């Protein structure tokens, strides 16, 4: 894939312009569709023995609620439960209420595989909303392929994957990275980059794509560095950054390391509210800022598809509903919103297919549109990723992002980017 393809308008995109034109469409989200269960007899909509009765359908929620990943995955669980509740309030899917079985992956990949198998084989769930890390997804993937399940995976991730049994509701790496680098180059006049990440596949792959793109633009990468997950001492790399004086610090630090990194960055006198250096991250959502402290990351830029502060009616409704369900002090990050899309996309696919059968849902999935998504209109690509806009937000002291840029068009997902591998 060439560089320009990242943002190039396609026929589908122009169609989107029409569809997403009216915010009025968002109202349809809360208008119950008059699908009644008796119009869809169980025997007809469930030919493969899934857990579907005349008035209920069971789905699985599979995230870590214990262990180190619980920090990140809690938001996703909350969003999925909210979506399920809203769908049920509207009359459910094909007239059936969604019930869910929640399993704990316990931040342990074999446990994820075990629980995924349990959900599919024992509980016969119709679909699973779950996983967060790539490792957990890789662990469950063979299970989903073998037992033909459907997984809605919410996290932005490194790409390089396209399974018929997964719908990726977060962005893959090129969607998230390329627009951000273009923006920082154009708007901030950035010439040199320092790439930094936690040591595992997502930051490494993302930085690889970033490096290729930066070099393609004729700019310079002055350093690239990885620290073990959970590392808490960043003074050395901060010194190196000071020595190299990059225009942009491109940071993909995750988890608890984030807190340490930004606190130490601020303490070392790197003031991100100043013109240079610009800190651009793709790993810090509003969720992470709660731990970091808004005052410690103020002025940094994040590049992703969703920010809580997005101004559109869909999002206003979503944020209000989320806070009502989980408390006023909740914040919503990119992944939380993507997780929220999972049940909705599944519902849309099921109703398009008129069946819960996984094969039919899969067939129906491409080109499913969700005009009511909090992030705005999204659409499922035949490669099972979502068309979505990429946005850049500037971190504020109150822990929210101010959206400073958004791509004009939806960015096409490209999990196997040629020229970036």
């Amino acid at each position, binding site marked *: 894939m060439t560089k320009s393809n990242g943002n190039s308008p396609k026929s589908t995109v122009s169609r989107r312009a029409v569809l997403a034109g009216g915010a009025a469409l968002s109202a349809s989200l809360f208008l119950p569709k008059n699908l009644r269960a008796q119009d869809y007899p169980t025997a007809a909509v469930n030919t493969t023995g899934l857990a579907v009765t005349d008035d209920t359908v069971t789905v699985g929620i599979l995230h870590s609620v214990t262990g180190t990943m619980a920090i990140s995955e809690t938001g996703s669980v909350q969003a999925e439960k909210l979506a399920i509740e809203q769908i049920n309030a509207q009359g459910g899917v094909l007239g059936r209420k969604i019930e869910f079985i929640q399993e704990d992956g316990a931040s342990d990949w074999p446990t994820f595989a075990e629980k995924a198998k349990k959900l599919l084989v024992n509980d016969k769930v119709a679909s699973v909303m779950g996983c967060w890390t790539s490792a957990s997804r890789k*662990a469950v993937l063979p299970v989903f392929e073998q037992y033909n399940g459907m997984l809605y995976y919410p996290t932005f991730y490194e790409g390089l994957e396209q399974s018929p049994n997964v719908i990726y509701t977060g962005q893959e790496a090129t969607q998230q990275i390329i627009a951000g680098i273009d923006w920082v180059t154009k708007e901030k006049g950035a010439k040199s980059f320092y790439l930094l990440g936690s040591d595992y596949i997502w930051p490494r792959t993302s930085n690889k794509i970033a490096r290729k793109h930066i070099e393609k633009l004729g700019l310079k990468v002055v350093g690239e560095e990885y620290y073990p997950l959970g590392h808490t001492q960043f003074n050395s790399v901060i010194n190196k950054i000071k020595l190299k004086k990059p225009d942009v610090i491109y940071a993909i630090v995750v988890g608890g390391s984030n807190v340490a990194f930004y606190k130490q960055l601020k303490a070392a006198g790197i003031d991100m509210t100043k013109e240079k250096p610009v800190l651009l991250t793709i790993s810090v959502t509003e969720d992470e800022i709660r731990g970091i402290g808004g005052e410690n990351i103020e002025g940094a830029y994040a590049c992703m598809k969703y920010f809580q502060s997005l101004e559109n009616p869909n999002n206003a409704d979503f944020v209000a509903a989320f806070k009502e369900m989980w408390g006023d002090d909740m914040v919503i990050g990119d992944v939380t919103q993507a997780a929220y899309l999972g049940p909705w996309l599944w519902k849309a696919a099921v109703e398009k297919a008129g069946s819960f059968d996984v094969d039919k849902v899969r067939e129906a999935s491409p080109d499913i549109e969700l005009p009511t998504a909090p992030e705005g209109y999204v659409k499922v690509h035949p490669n099972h990723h979502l068309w979505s806009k990429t946005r850049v937000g500037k971190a504020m002291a109150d822990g929210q992002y101010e959206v400073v840029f958004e791509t004009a068009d939806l960015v096409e997902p490209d999990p196997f980017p040629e020229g970036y591998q």
Partner: protein
Amino acid sequence: MTPTKKTAFLTPKEMIGFAILAALIFVVLPLALDTFRLNLFGKYLTYAFVAVGLVLCWGAGGILSLGQGVFFGLGGYCMAMFLKLEASTPENTAIQSTPGIPDFMDWNQITALPWWWEPFHSFGLTLIAIIAVPVVFAFIIAFAMFRRRVGGVYFAIITQAIAAILTILIIGQQGFTGGVNGITDLRTLHGWDIRTDEAKNILYFVNGILLFAVLFAAHYVRKSKLGRLLIAMRDQEDRVRFSGYDVASFKIFVFCLGAAFSAIGGAMFTLQVGFMSPTLVGIVPSIEMVIFCAVGGRLSIIGAVYGTLLVNFAKTTFSESFPEVWLLGLGALFIAVVMAFPRGLAGIWADWVEPRLSSLFSRKTGDDSTAAPKTPAE
């Protein structure tokens, strides 16, 4: 399928113990469980290999290793490398820039298979490597430490650090190891699809047979003079030394044996679960395996198997029924075992069940073997 042939080294009581376990593993569980649960128990049983090794090292020899996950992992990785190479045929990987190498290598711009992956094209070499790699690694650690008489707490902490180092290394060298994701998407063993239900059932039985082989080996060691020496060493190391034994060589041997057992478990884990990842190498699983052994009763080989099954079964059940509080239960279990039942299940059996059973026996006429006690409560 009862491998409890009458051999000289089994007393009738031990024979009954083995027979009950065999009945449980080969008859009761397969009949009572569906394939999914059976496969789950198969996974638990792979941890039992490690626990049995720990009975020898820790219970008998007093050597507590907090790094058994390292050997479990190395064995598992060796098996996973073979399976991954088999899965990475040029046809399967045609979409890669370099077809024919594992997908994660391709993602990391590696264009040729590293030389140390080459032996894993051969199943024979892989089988050798599964045992040899962890044993050599264990030998190096043990040789360095035991020759210098590092023991007890220090050994525990150093092995723990080794587990941490290996985890960071595997994650950091993701181009060669698959990184934090591990080696995933394993499909066939010599063309035999290991993902089917039928294969899972067969693997369960293979696993069970291997476990019994390991149990018998461990039992033989315990019963041999070497087993008595281990106990002697644990209590009076100096006396053993001054009876003319090179204490270090015995410790090295038993540590390597424990590593070999763990490695077999790791390889079977890979086969049954379908992947291997660094989360099985680290500190947390290593400590958990010690707990399995402690719950079973650190001196009892059979107890280790029950301990492993019990803790894992509890873990799964707890986490299915009360996902948000299962850690509390698990933590409480650890403390309870250490504080109140230091001899674990084996101790409870010996102190409570056995006396009652034998009084039952003595009242009945004769000791017909069909009147053998039923499977102990799990």
